[in-house]
């Protein structure tokens, strides 16, 4: 019956799906790889600090509010980035600060994805009443000034007990950010789902009796999820900024150093000519966000190659 027998020659190597292709393309871009390296270093640092605190490794001062040395010493060979008001090394504070910023941004991202993606998928696929309700919710939410909203949530959540756990300042911060920032990803997912749901391959799935749940999870999500990844990498930056602002405004953990708190302190210090704490924190944030932005752009470019011979 097969007059031509095997019509496809087995090409060497498999895995020509979206991700392997994108990864391959991404690896060729040196700058993106460098940036990825920087981001990984930050994450590792944050993880290290977290473990250090959990297992109580004594790698540094445990009381950040204690006077340990000369106050406001400028950068020197002993304290590479100078000291703060308590004489704590700014360098140490900057490194430790990574933990808070990254933790908050990470959890906030996860929360906003956990809320935004399902809602966007439901709104986009089912349309009708569900769509109208969800769109109404997020339109209203996004009309309130962002900072006020986060602040309101954070203040309310701080020191509350949820399911037996007392919410720390950090938890309040990332909950607040996550619960208010899902709108962007929700919109994106909704748009993509609307675009894809009338495509023929979805129609084909319906035609052989696929249930709606399976269609959304197994057929639509894989086609739409790359948006989440790209959005994640770019939104992370916004969440880091949000954490900085929250710390600035006094939300967050007072007992641990964070970049936002450092910048907050700098308000007073600058008038005294003490610039090193501000500079260190700002530089740390800047470098991280820059690396993440460049990597996110490169990722987007790799996932949407422009010239593809069909």
């Amino acid at each position, binding site marked *: 019956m097969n007059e031509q027998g095997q*019509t496809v020659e087995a090409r060497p190597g498999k895995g020509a799906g979206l991700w392997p292709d994108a990864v391959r393309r991404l690896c060729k871009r040196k700058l993106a790889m460098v940036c990825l390296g920087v981001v990984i270093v930050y994450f590792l640092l944050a993880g290290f600090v977290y473990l250090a605190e959990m297992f109580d490794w004594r790698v540094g001062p445990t009381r950040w509010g204690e006077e340990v040395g000369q106050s406001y010493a400028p950068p020197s060979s002993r304290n590479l980035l100078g000291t703060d008001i308590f004489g704590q090394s700014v360098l140490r504070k900057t490194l430790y600060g990574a933990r808070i910023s990254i933790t908050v941004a990470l959890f906030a991202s996860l929360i906003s994805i956990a809320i935004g993606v399902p809602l966007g998928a439901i709104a986009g696929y089912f349309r009708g009443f569900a769509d109208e309700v969800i769109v109404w919710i997020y339109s209203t939410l996004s009309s309130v000034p962002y900072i006020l909203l986060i602040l309101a949530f954070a203040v309310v959540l701080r020191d509350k007990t949820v399911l037996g756990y007392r919410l720390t300042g950090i938890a309040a911060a990332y909950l607040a950010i996550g619960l208010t920032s899902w709108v962007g990803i929700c919109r994106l997912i909704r748009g993509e789902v609307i675009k894809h749901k009338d495509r023929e391959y979805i129609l084909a799935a319906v035609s052989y009796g696929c249930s709606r749940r399976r269609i959304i999870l197994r057929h639509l999500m894989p086609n739409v999820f790359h948006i989440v990844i790209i959005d994640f990498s770019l939104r992370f930056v916004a969440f880091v900024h949000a954490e900085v602002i929250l710390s600035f405004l006094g939300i967050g953990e007072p007992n641990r150093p964070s970049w936002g708190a450092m910048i907050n302190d700098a308000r007073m210090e600058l008038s005294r000519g003490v610039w090193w704490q501000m500079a260190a924190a700002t530089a740390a944030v800047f470098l991280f966000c820059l690396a993440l932005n460049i990597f996110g752009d490169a990722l987007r470019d790799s996932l949407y190659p422009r010239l593809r*011979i069909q």
Partner: protein
Amino acid sequence: MDLIANNKRDVKKSDGNGTLLSVRNLSAHFFTEEGIVRAVQDVGFSIRRGRTLALVGESGCGKTATALSIMRLVPAPQGKIISGQIVFEERSLLDLNEKEMREIRGNRIAMIFQEPMSSLNPVYAVGDQIAEAIKVHQKKGRKEAWADVVEMLRAVGIADPRRRVREYPHQMSSGMCQRVMIAMAVSCEPVLLIADEPTTALDVTTQGKILDLLDELQRQNGMSVLLITHDLGVVAQRADDVAVMYASRIVETAGSRRLFAEPLHPYTQGLWESLPRLGFKGRRLRTIPGAVPEPLRFPAGCKFHPRCPKGRSDERCRSVEPELREVEAGRRVACWHARGYEESQSVKCKV
């Protein structure tokens, strides 16, 4: 039906045998991440004044790339014309600079494309788009140009042109959009029209009307047409001469009647036989086994040999690529097994 009141037809320089466009040894490559795509290799053909040449081939054979090369619209830097000669009205197109080329595009050589809806700019009214070509090349003012536009629309068979002129592409059907494209293309009375699959996206009845229109315009202006298509039926009905392309090369050229009466290249023969035709009595269609090779993975030797009943097991077909040779007057073919191939001369030596 007259097209434009004031004819700007110059005295045409006449080439000895009336050749308008002559393409020789044209090669164009595309540089991609995965390698070099040799989209057009050693392509040569000529078009005479007032005649229609059909460039036939399946998807990926390089016919659109060839047309773009003639218009010098090959997207750079991914694409580049590597070598060859394109002589149009005794000028070498590849030697012109961009400014001179712009004078020719739309004015002496015009092109229409496959997807009429997406070839028109959706945010401009149809009249504006046609008028633009007129304004650029004939240096007319807006009012004059629009008057011409209305006439053009009437000439291409659009009813109620005064109303249509203000409409946008999405308000029109595909057939009408294609007429608009044709109006744009012939607005400056070009001597050569390149039509890249002009009717593939249209219904068969609309296709008939559009092709009739092109015939009519050709008769009036003495325009030559390079008709690119994969539809052999259209070729049989409308083309004077035919060039068959396969995998970036020309494999056969002939007058249309002779080609259908006796195709010499196995690919042309296979295409012809695998067409379902009205009145066909068989139970199964004859097919060409396998598929068109990918540009990055062309086979060695004759590119058709893996699918060819004669060439599959022939040592020479597998290793040496046959060049295009003139086997009789007006017929060229590139196949070791074609009648008269062994004795004939390579086309390259001829002028």
